[in-house]
């Protein structure tokens, strides 16, 4: 593996981690939004608060990691992507700002009506952020970000691959969020809540699975390079994703919530990795290869040092945090 590809892989690990951990947090917003009125939704919203409260900020940092790795490792492509995709980037950013602040505000809101307002903002923006980030991924994967200068401000992200990317992002987030919330509810002894979440997660899972695989047809038309990768090198991952997704549905159906978390993570990780492998060796599909878009070697080595430090310094406490929040002990109260 070349230095450039190693850094691209490290960057992509961040994308996958953000899709999984950030994705589960975003997905919780979907259930929060559809939980019903203040009284009916109280139990679910309290659950959302408990399960993402301790982790959402750590999960959010993956996005910063991706941005920093991108602009440091592949600066020119970062500038082109930001130039071309300024609109969806801004909408995603708006969602991120509103979501994080509204989530923090809701917890300490002075009145019920304000809590409701913040709650709606939090939940709504949990949907728009993954959608627009999905369109960004679609724009890059369909070859609409030029190597230099600016692509079309609108069609670069309003096209079949981008729109499907957005929908798939929202769907996978909701699916992950649902699986984790269901397991949390079950572990916390909220049996009725777990049951209702189970049904909704099953529905979301089926719908998302159908979209992911139906999307392959229009994507083949719209983005031939990506499609060739998906049907070729990435095919095993797509199959693995299908199997893990189906397995998750079966486990959910049989109320085996704990193992369902694992298969759900595998399903989403494989589909996201499938996209990355599918567009390899392109950094910006059809425009810039990873090898050609990378910055100075000395900087790439520096980035790998940071990644190594992160593996030693950040991953263990992160695992500890997840272990605490996913354990019986912290679920109470």
């Amino acid at each position, binding site marked *: 593996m070349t230095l450039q590809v190693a850094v691209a892989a490290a960057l992509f690990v961040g994308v996958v981690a953000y899709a999984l951990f950030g994705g589960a947090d975003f997905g919780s917003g979907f259930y929060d939004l559809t939980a019903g009125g203040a009284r009916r939704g109280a139990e679910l919203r309290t659950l959302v608060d408990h399960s993402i409260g301790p982790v959402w900020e750590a999960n959010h940092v993956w996005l910063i990691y991706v941005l920093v790795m991108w602009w440091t490792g592949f600066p020119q492509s970062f500038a082109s992507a930001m130039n071309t995709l300024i609109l969806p980037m801004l909408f995603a950013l708006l969602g*991120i700002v509103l979501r994080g602040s509204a989530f923090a505000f809701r917890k300490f809101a002075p009145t019920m009506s304000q809590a409701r307002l913040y709650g709606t903002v939090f939940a709504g923006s949990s949907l728009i952020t993954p959608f627009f980030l999905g369109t960004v991924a679609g724009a890059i994967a369909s070859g609409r970000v030029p190597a230099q200068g600016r692509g079309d401000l609108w069609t670069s992200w309003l096209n079949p691959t981008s729109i499907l990317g957005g929908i798939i992002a929202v769907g996978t987030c909701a699916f992950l969020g649902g699986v984790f919330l269901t397991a949390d509810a079950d572990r916390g002894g909220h049996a009725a809540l777990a049951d209702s979440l189970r049904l909704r997660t099953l529905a979301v899972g089926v719908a998302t699975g159908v979209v992911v695989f139906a999307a392959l047809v229009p994507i083949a038309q719209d983005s031939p390079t990506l499609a060739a990768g998906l049907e070729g090198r990435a095919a095993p991952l797509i199959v693995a994703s299908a199997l893990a997704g189906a397995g998750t549905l079966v486990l959910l159906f049989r109320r085996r919530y704990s193992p369902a978390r694992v298969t759900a993570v595998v399903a989403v990780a494989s589909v996201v990795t499938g996209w990355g492998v599918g567009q390899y060796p392109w950094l910006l599909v059809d425009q810039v290869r990873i090898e050609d878009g990378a910055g100075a070697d000395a900087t790439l080595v520096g980035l790998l040092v940071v990644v190594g430090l992160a593996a030693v310094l950040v991953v263990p406490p992160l695992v500890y945090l997840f272990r605490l929040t996913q354990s019986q002990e912290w679920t109470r109260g």
Partner: protein
Amino acid sequence: MAVLDLVQEVLAGQDPAGLLPARQQMALSLGWHIVLASFGVAFPAMIFVAHWRGVYRDDANALTLAQRWAKVSAVLFAIGAVSGTVLSFEMGLLWPGLMGPFGDVLGLPFAFEGLSFFTEAIFLGIYLYGWGRMPPRLHLLMILPMAVAGVVGTYCVVAVNAWMNMPVGFAIEGGEVVDIRPWEVLFNPGAILQFAHMWVAAYMVVGFLVAGVYAAGMLRGRRNRHHRLGFTMAFVFASVAAVIQPFVGHLLGLRIATRQPAKLAAFELATTTESPSPLRLGGLLVDGEVRYSLDIPYLGSIIARNSFTKPVVGLDEIPVADQPPINITHVAFQTMVGIGTLLAVAVVVYWFARWRGWDLLANRWMLRAAVAAGPLALIALEAGWIATEVGRQPWVVYDVLRTADAAGDNPDLWILLVATTILYTALTIGAITVLRSMSRRWRAGEEDLPSPYGPELQEPGVDERPVGS
């Protein structure tokens, strides 16, 4: 759009369409984030001290303070995280001419900053949710990584800024950026002092603001131990920082004479090179002449150059195209120095009086001054930041890349600026409302605030009551 075009023309002249809105946008979001960043740096250490006192000295008041400060920091850290994310997007959205060619030069410090931000976020999660769930002494230790990471993160971000002021670690050949040495950027010679100045400033701002909250409470008659302890602990942090800061600032200033003479000339309002140079208090540059200033002979040379004779280079020796906006830079600089000096003197007077046995906390004027110190420190922070950033203009990377060349050519950024202003205003209102509501509820005796939409609210007809009442 005609009006916007006109405004653009008047304000920005021949610059690229994206330059002025990009600068304003960056100024707004950085100026806003810097306040929250200060809390991220200084608050964990203050919480640690309060928490330590609570655990090891069995001080219930201190423990309550630590717990409440932690909850405040949760809100501030959340909006600090999102406003920091805004900045990382903006680096690319607003400054493609900087991030394209120089992304791999300046990126490594940001990568380390990301690492420390990660650490902060993880341990904040553990610490906040560990209350009552972890053994007290282990729980106390969970805040230390946050405090350390806050310091490292600040160093990294300031290192990038210092690099913009004193660029190193690359060469330019035929218009191409080559020979990139990222570690030199991370450890660039300008970083340590500039970091120290910012670090100490964070303690001043947060210390004075927090102390001011308790001073305000005492003014309203809440003169219990909780308020006295809250005031004193925060005030100690602020005092130490306020006394150290003038020395750090002085050392930093000495460097500017050789590194950025244009910035120093603007700071000192030196129109011509005089030997020795006077210190100009106040004053504005009107039609090329200094008006309304009070000149103190020699002092300019002494302060800026550590010498009785060495001059401050005047603006007449610097091409107009390389001069920063003089008045903004000068006023911002003098505001920072003026407030800094005032606060340093004030804390010395306070501790001297306390040493002599006077109870200044009984004095209403002293309490009012303590309340004012927070906003003053905040103004000094913003002014200092304006002085260093505006003073660097017209360069984004000093002597290498002009700000105009870093900006994109996107006139629609004006719309974005308006939207951002509205959004940040709303965020500010939200944050203040929520923090006030927290303190109100703490006064009402509710220590553990329930989750939103808590089951307590399920009885009918209580929708408009405070959550958890």
